[in-house]
């Protein structure tokens, strides 16, 4: 692919992905992993790493698109993935938001919310499963993920510290290949 074609396809793919984030960003993660692998040949490892780095920075949780764009086409790719994922969707949100402001509450709104919720959770679980297949394949990495789950569910510790702790643990104890 030539540079221009590559950047254009980043624009198209990430815009399309943003429209599929039903019920929040994480729902689109498994589809994003499949698509970036099919279209841009990013490895599973690269995808999970991008998600991990996204946990270390402040701001919206879908900033991993910046890392994915960077791995595909450098700085230009990073900026185009960012704009593609957030700007078109924001314009639609703004337009629809103006209409919804004058809309009367409808019982269908609850039906849509309750009906989509299990789909969103199923998609998030699929994302965790797909990432686990490539990131937690050895005993120490499985143990590390389980410790993180326990801390997340049982304490109020900020996830940033957990991810940083995992990095330190990895640097000290995981195999250096």
């Amino acid at each position: 692919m030539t540079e221009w074609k590559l950047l254009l396809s980043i624009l198209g793919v990430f815009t399309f992905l943003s429209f599929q984030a039903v019920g929040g960003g994480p729902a689109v993660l498994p589809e994003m992993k499949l698509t970036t692998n099919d279209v841009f040949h990013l490895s599973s490892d690269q995808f999970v790493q991008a998600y991990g780095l996204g946990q270390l920075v402040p701001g919206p949780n879908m900033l991993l698109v910046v890392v994915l764009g960077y791995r595909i086409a450098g700085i230009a790719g990073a900026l185009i993935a960012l704009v593609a994922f957030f700007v078109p969707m924001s314009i639609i949100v703004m337009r629809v938001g103006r209409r919804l402001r004058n809309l009367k509450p409808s019982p269908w709104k609850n039906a849509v919310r309750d009906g989509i919720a299990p789909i969103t959770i199923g998609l998030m679980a699929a994302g965790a499963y797909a990432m686990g297949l490539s990131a937690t394949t050895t005993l120490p990495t499985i143990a590390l993920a389980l410790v993180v789950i326990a801390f997340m569910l049982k304490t109020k510790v900020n996830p940033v510290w957990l991810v940083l702790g995992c990095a330190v643990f990895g640097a000290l104890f995981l195999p250096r290949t």
Partner: protein
Amino acid sequence: MADYNAAMGSSVTATPSVAATPHVTPAALFSHFLVIGAISFGGGIVAYLRRMLVDQTKWLTEEEFLTCLEVSQTLPGTNSVNMSVLVGDRFCGTIGAAAALTGLMLPGTILILILAIVSGAGRHNPIAHAALAGVTAGAVGILTAITLQTGKRQFTRLPDIVFLILTFVGMAIFKVRLLVLVIVLGGICIYLYRPRQAHHD
């Protein structure tokens, strides 16, 4: 006594201005959302937004905030991003939406771009590679925990569990496209939850 009356009088005249819509400029939107964008480490931005919009600046009442949040959650996309766009648009139109969105995204974008460059350059270093393996394992744990927390209600209701498992199997095992799953399974599930007149909430 005169002083007391004067003090009471001034406080009475000041009261009506509280009910008026606050005057918010694009610059104020940008700087306030920039702060949130810089300090919201570890997710949970909606809580930071509530503190800023309702408690600190009083730009929104609690009720306005919740309405805004509901619209953000109904539309596709990231909740915090939708929220900032809606709030920015509410006070200053398109310019306000752009100001709030840019403020929210700027600090995280710069930081993650630096991380992407550094980790890309260091990937052949064995220690950096091992550290990243730790980060990826931790990331799996975090997404799993967020899924369990977000789905607390869905994991306890039988019809929801069925659709949750069908979605999971469709996506994770058979790699069905997301849009197909949302339209088919989401459509059926919304139909099951359809409003019924005899049935009250």
